[in-house]
């Protein structure tokens, strides 16, 4: 037990007498009925959508008028409630709105809640377990699924790690990242289930990618964690999910990848809107984010091109291991890798970080990749 009450209530005669007196006499204190809070009327602006967080953005409770520094609330008190003396100081680590906020975060939350799905019942498992895949395809697919399960477990841990560290006033963000925790847990579940239904089970973990995942987990601030998790890593995984849908061997697998890509794209959307918010409201963070991305991109280059990740892509996209299939797989995989990095820089530019290209080693790798594609005669756009 690391935290103890300052009082043993059952041994406190005054406390016990007061409790018993109230029940015996019916004399109520009722001071809570005079809470110094706003009385408001909130109703759905769009009945088809239901009552959303945006409908609750009213004086006294809303997020639009929330100050940049959350000084007043250091407890679990919900934003807008009266905070009486005696509420504990929870010592939240993040108390600055621009460290966590994102444009439209409330609508990302509502979208997340309405688009939840169930890995047990929404994927056509009966059809998938009957699908017979050639040995080399099945092994490559199981290796890809092993990698994805590994990645999704850390994607669950990172937002979960930050949830309890945010000031309670950042309610909408906490709720959004709670949905992300559920999404990522479901992704780890669905990839594990699919790996164990291929007949081959899980294959080999990826040491280089685990180093990258550790880097993601151990970011110094929420904004750095978000930029590398939501925008960089999930942006690249989103491209990978689309690629995986493209090369999926069955219609059931395609559906599986469409379902996970929906969640991933929503997380990327939050990451983009958060980075924009940070750059607009906390410009001093720009250089810190660049420094963090310098190392993040180094890890990405090492991890994404590890053999246990890249080779299954080549076999799956070439649809086999014959020489011509491997050649075709190399072309498709090279085009995918270029697309993945191009989209990452597109997103950074849109967020207000266009200068990233100038200082990025990964951008130099992208230029090398584009030149290689041209030499292979592959059209990218």
């Amino acid at each position, binding site marked *: 037990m690391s935290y103890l009450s300052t009082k043993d209530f059952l041994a406190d005669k005054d406390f016990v007498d007061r409790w018993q007196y109230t029940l015996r006499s019916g004399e109520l204190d009722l001071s809570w009925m005079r809470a110094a809070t706003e009385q408001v009327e909130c109703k759905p602006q*769009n009945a*088809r*959508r239901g009552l959303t967080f945006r409908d609750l953005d009213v004086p006294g409770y809303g997020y639009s008028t929330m100050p940049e520094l959350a000084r007043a609330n250091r407890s679990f008190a919900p934003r807008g409630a009266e905070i009486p003396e005696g509420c504990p100081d929870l010592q939240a680590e993040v108390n600055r709105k621009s460290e966590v906020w994102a444009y439209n975060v409330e609508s990302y939350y*509502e*979208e997340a809640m*309405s*688009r*939840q799905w169930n890995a047990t019942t929404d994927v056509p498992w009966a059809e998938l377990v009957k699908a017979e895949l050639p040995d080399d395809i099945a092994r490559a697919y199981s290796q890809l699924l092993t990698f994805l399960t590994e990645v999704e477990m850390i994607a669950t841990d990172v937002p979960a790690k930050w949830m309890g560290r945010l000031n309670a006033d950042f309610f909408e963000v906490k709720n959004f990242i709670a949905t992300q925790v559920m999404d990522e847990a479901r992704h780890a579940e669905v990839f594990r289930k699919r790996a164990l239904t291929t007949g081959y089970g899980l294959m080999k973990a990826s040491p280089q990618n685990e180093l990258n995942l550790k880097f993601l987990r151990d970011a110094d601030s929420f904004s750095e964690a978000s930029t590398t998790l939501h925008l960089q890593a999930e942006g690249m995984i*989103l491209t990978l*999910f*689309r*690629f995986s*849908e*493209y090369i*999926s*061997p*069955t*219609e059931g697998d*395609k*559906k599986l*990848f*469409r*379902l996970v*890509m*929906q969640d*991933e*794209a*929503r997380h*990327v*959307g939050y990451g*983009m809107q958060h980075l924009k918010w940070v750059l607009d409201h906390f410009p001093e963070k720009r250089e810190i984010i660049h420094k963090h991305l310098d190392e993040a991109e180094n890890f990405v280059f090492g991890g994404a091109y590890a053999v246990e990740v890249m080779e299954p892509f080549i076999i799956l996209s070439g649809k086999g291991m014959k020489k011509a299939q491997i050649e075709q797989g190399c072309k*498709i995989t090279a*085009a995918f890798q270029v*697309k993945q990095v191009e*989209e990452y820089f*597109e*997103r950074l530019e*849109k967020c207000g970080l266009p200068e990233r290209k100038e200082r990025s080693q990964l951008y130099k790798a992208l230029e090398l990749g584009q030149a290689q594609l041209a030499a292979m005669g592959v059209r*990218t*756009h």
Partner: protein
Amino acid sequence: MSVTFPSGAFFQALAAAMAGAHDRFRGLGFFDATIGIRVLLDDDGGAERLFVLVFEVFECTRAEEVPDFTRLHVDFVLEGKTSVWREMFENIRRNGGADVAHSINTLTHFGEQLTLRYDDPDGHDKLYRFAESVQQFFDLAATLDGVTYEGAARLAAPAA
């Protein structure tokens, strides 16, 4: 009653089918996106027809032919030759839904068949945020009574 592709009536028929499948789309969740459709006519050098599809909450609230996309704030545009669209819809009608080679993501992935155009990466990502809803919307072509294609004989195949 059969509808002709490409036409506003064709996309309105899909929108009506979506309204008829309300519970299914409600189960998929909020779907808020504005999608442009550009159909490049195979035989008519440079000619094209444009359509806009507006999705709000669980419905398609607007499906019509437009002269251009200016001021429509489309999130992304799906562009392709009539023959590619036709192959996709025929495949959907044969199978009751797109097979592995004809899903929207597969057709657009490397831009070889359908091309995905966008100005804003946020708008681009909406195709993926709503991927299953987009796919199931196009899969509703399987439920239409009949589809004819401009400049081609009516297909005999009934809805799956």
